[in-house]
């Protein structure tokens, strides 16, 4: 089953290289993501039954436990929605003459390579191969970020690849130190094996491990969008085509955070307490939330605003991981899920808006509710959701996290976060709500939805976030709790 999961994107890329007919490419894309989703569903059932799924191929390198399957499911669901959405989006772009048909083939090849590398990062237990896969995600997505080949896109793509590559290189230094800390404890083939490191964590050298942790947080944090390494994120996420922005924001940031979480599990188990990692994660987290708040207040471009909101939510997840109680880790994982669905839904809707209005500026868009009724409504409710309003998912996970913070007596952190969240809500409301009302004065924008498959995908995601906001189904709750146990490992 795991083999099917990883082999399908590869096969899809090969097929895209061979097939030129557009309709057939759309069909391959949607069927590939459906097959991946089915494989992931079966894997989830296996993991929930057996706890851990391991394959002995390539020296036992593949390893899927509850934490991996949780993040993997997010990848797969959003991948399916995005590929459904892309069909309509690309057709619309062709109609308006913004793309040549040949570019669509490149788009799909890169997108499926991107999805493959992300899934690879989540299914291996060797930290070195995880690193290679995360570096490969940067490489696969650079040309996707610069897809439109305009001045701004090229600049965004350059910043993306340079900053992320340097960050990932620093993470490699951290992984080297990780290996160095285990040099007397592990042998040969067990180097950088996560399960081996986790089991023998008490015997690792603490000061080298501290160095390793700092470098890994800075390195993978660059990829995850933690401030102050976040500078590539607004540019890359706003210049990429909207389905790719959804993938980048909803999925890639999670993969990078996954890498950090795996390391934190080892380090906390070795050091015996979460004070060291907690301080670092909380600092980065609060810095990210504050940076996002400042920049959201003055944004003129709605896609950039959504990108800054991603930075904010990644900051919240970082703070939750820093607090490191079972409740806060539960909240962090739940927040990962909710944020991914909400953010990708928002980016896909923004794609529709961009195609209809042909501008990225907030001030130029008026009367969205009349012109794009379904998308507009979903976008409006989505903005409420991302700012943390009930009854949507993001509210429940933020509530859990804030409860955990106050439970651990970190009053000032909790109050700070609550205040900044309120500020962000005000900022989003103030800037964005003008887009929905009023009448549109430009004559060439006709009312009516475009991209029907995309609208379906958006609505499905919207239903998902409403559901998780109202109640969490038991299997999901168990899965998240098991994943939390892997991270905390029985110590608080």
């Amino acid at each position: 089953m795991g083999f099917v999961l990883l082999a399908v994107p590869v096969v899809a890329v090969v097929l895209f290289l061979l097939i030129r007919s557009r309709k057939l490419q759309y069909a391959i894309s949607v069927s590939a993501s459906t097959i991946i989703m089915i494989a992931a569903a079966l894997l989830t059932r296996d993991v929930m039954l057996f706890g851990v799924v391991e394959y002995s191929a390539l020296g036992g390198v593949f390893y899927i436990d509850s934490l991996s399957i949780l993040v993997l499911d997010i990848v797969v669901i959003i991948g399916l929605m995005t590929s459904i959405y892309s069909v309509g989006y690309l057709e619309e772009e062709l109609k308006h003459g913004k793309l040549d048909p040949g570019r669509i083939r490149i788009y799909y090849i890169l997108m499926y390579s991107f999805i493959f590398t992300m899934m690879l990062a989540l299914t291996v237990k060797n930290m070195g191969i995880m690193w290679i896969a995360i570096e490969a995600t940067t490489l696969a997505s650079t040309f996707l970020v610069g897809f439109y080949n305009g001045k701004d896109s090229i600049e965004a793509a350059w910043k993306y690849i340079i900053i992320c590559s340097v960050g990932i290189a620093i993470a490699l230094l951290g992984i080297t130190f990780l290996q160095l800390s285990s040099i007397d404890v592990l042998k040969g083939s067990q180097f950088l094996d996560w399960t081996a490191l986790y089991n023998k964590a008490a015997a690792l050298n603490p000061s080298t491990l501290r160095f390793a942790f700092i470098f890994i947080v800075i390195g993978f944090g660059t990829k995850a969008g933690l401030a102050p390494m976040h500078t590539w994120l607004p540019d890359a996420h706003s210049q990429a085509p909207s389905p790719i922005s959804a993938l980048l924001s909803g999925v890639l940031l999670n993969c990078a955070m996954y890498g950090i979480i795996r390391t934190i599990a080892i380090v906390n188990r070795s050091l015996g307490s979460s004070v060291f990692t907690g301080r670092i994660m909380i600092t980065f987290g609060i810095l990210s939330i504050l940076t996002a708040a400042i920049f959201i207040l003055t944004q003129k471009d709605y896609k950039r605003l959504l990108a800054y909101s991603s930075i904010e939510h990644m900051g919240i997840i970082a703070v939750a991981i820093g607090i490191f109680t079972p409740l806060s880790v539960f909240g962090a994982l739940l927040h990962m899920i909710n944020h991914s669905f909400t953010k990708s839904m928002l980016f896909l809707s923004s794609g529709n808006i961009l195609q209809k209005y042909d501008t990225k500026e907030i001030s130029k868009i008026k009367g969205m509710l009349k012109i794009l009724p379904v998308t507009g409504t979903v976008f409006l409710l989505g903005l409420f959701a991302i700012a943390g309003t009930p009854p949507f998912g993001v509210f429940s996970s933020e509530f859990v996290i804030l409860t955990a913070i106050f439970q651990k007596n970190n009053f000032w952190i909790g109050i700070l976060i609550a205040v900044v969240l309120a500020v962000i809500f005000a900022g989003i409301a103030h800037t964005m709500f003008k887009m929905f009302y009023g009448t549109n004065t430009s004559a060439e924008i006709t009312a009516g939805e475009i991209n029907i498959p995309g609208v379906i995908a958006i609505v499905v995601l919207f239903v998902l976030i409403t559901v998780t906001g109202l109640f969490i189904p038991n299997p999901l709750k168990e899965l998240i709790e098991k994943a939390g146990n892997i991270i905390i490992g029985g110590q608080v």
Partner: protein
Amino acid sequence: MSDYLDVLSVLILLSSFILMANKRTKSHIRTFRIQAAMIALAAGIMGIDSLYKEGRFDLLVVCAVITAIKVIYIPRLLKKVDANVEYKVEKDFFLNIPILIIGCCFIVVFTYFSISTSEGINTGTLNMRVVNSVSLILIGLFFMISRKKAIGQIVGFLVIENGIFVTAMFATQGMPFIVDMGMFIDLLSAVMILGIMVFKINEKFKSVDINKLKNLRG
């Protein structure tokens, strides 16, 4: 043998200083090539030694791969990129060269003080080799932020990767083999993609000055 490795680690650090002191892109590429050749030599020496003692020859394969990729292929690629872009950026750096070199010296001293105050890495000669290698990483980073040309940033990134590889090699006798190979493939694709991006930048912005890329702000 450990004498030769000490000498090589110091020479590699020396080559990074020479890299900093150079003003032209072609010299940067040539100095990078010399540095990669010395790293390959160090890997070769360690590989032969491990072949005698333990019969493993992954370090020798790594040495061969480094020679093929970093000494031969990547400099050739960079020269091709350099030949096809505009040459108009006159003053490539913000501060003048003596200050940059003194900055590199501060980096070495800073690295020495941070590493020597942490146990676990400072055992005898291992200490100085690790200090040299980690300084190489930081000097590569410094080089990257002090240059205005896009190719300078690529060379800086390559020096960072060199430094990380040398640190792994000296401190832990190399990473697991498959991780090393994956690293090289990643590096190769990264350089190819960066080369294509430099072409695109040159095409759109009519110059390779990174400071002109400031449309996206805030």
